[in-house]
């Protein structure tokens, strides 16, 4: 595949970079990335990946847009309230860059569909807003060996980590089980300041681009934590846990289970 004249103009700032060049741009155009969630994080991640020319972007989200989403979910707009987020984000990303093919999947991700969905992609990005999904995505990526760039936000704080199965830590190495429901409030309960997902999503998008290009150091065995009020970043080491229930030496999780049920049981 050769870059056409329009692509040479569009991606000229990439091509100039010694670490990217035309070869790197072709890698981006050939890459396939799936975003879990087209909300606060999925919007900026997808926006930047589309702008960068990541050729195929999958979006899985079964939610529709509400007015209360628009203070942070920048791929959607006021006219589109009520529309599926996956459809709205597809529209926005494809309008930004016609090189990009966006596949909108209006389903809830579950143990029954996740393997089938992620198998077609090179990298998975988690921008989900709940613990059952976060653990489901982690376990599915570890079990199928897919790189996962995970991000989370709440109030004024966010975190990012890159999970490279077999090479480094996974989410369960860090937090073996989800916290009991109610212990960690959701965005709905606790709020989130508008630009925060842009920062965390931007970091996630950068991790994805680095993985595709094979450049730099991924956030493997590291958790990057951003405190917006203090305007500070801190990087915490997360060693791979040999006793991790999914990626450890003697894993107890060898197939996916019902994550919603597990999570709700903790409540009881």
């Amino acid at each position, binding site marked *: 595949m050769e*870059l056409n004249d329009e692509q*040479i*103009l569009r991606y*000229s*700032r990439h*091509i*100039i970079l*010694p670490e990217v*060049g*035309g*070869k790197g741009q072709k890698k981006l155009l050939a890459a396939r990335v799936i975003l879990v969630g087209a909300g606060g994080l999925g919007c900026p991640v997808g926006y930047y990946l589309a702008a960068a020319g990541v050729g195929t972007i999958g979006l899985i989200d079964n939610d529709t847009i509400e007015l209360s989403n628009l203070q942070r979910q920048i791929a959607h707009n006021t006219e589109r309230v009520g529309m599926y987020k996956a459809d709205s984000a597809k529209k926005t990303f494809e309008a930004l860059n016609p090189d990009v093919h966006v596949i909108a999947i209006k389903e809830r991700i579950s143990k029954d569909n996740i393997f089938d969905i992620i198998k077609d992609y090179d990298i998975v990005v988690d921008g989900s807003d709940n613990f059952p999904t976060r653990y489901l995505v982690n376990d599915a990526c570890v079990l199928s060996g897919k790189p996962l760039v995970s991000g989370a936000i709440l109030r004024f704080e966010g975190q990012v980590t890159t999970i490279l199965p077999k090479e480094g830590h996974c989410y369960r190495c860090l937090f073996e089980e989800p916290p009991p429901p109610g212990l960690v409030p959701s965005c709905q309960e606790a709020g989130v300041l508008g630009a925060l997902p842009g920062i965390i999503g931007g970091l996630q998008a950068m991790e994805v681009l680095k993985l595709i290009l094979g450049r730099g150091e991924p956030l493997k065995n590291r958790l990057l934590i951003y405190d917006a009020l203090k305007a500070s970043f801190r990087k915490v080491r997360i060693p791979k846990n040999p006793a991790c229930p999914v990626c450890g030496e003697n894993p107890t999780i060898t197939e996916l289970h019902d994550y919603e049920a597990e999570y709700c049981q903790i409540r009881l």
Partner: protein
Amino acid sequence: MEEIKPDKTINIKGLVCPYTFVKSKLAIEDMEVGEVLEIILDYPEASRSIPKSMEDHGHKVLKVEKINDTDWIIVIRKERE
């Protein structure tokens, strides 16, 4: 001095920065280490910036020559991938 025979020649007359360099870089990426690229251009600024950028990227500038009132020839040897 012996005349260097280019392995590839590109004519980027009419292009301005940064596309002069973008086109030159794409051309050199597709070549083998040791091969020589000849660039014909007419954007004065690029006659200075292309050699500098190519050197920054680790390549060897063999020649920069104004060949008439409007045009330059730049000859670069690819030194690294």
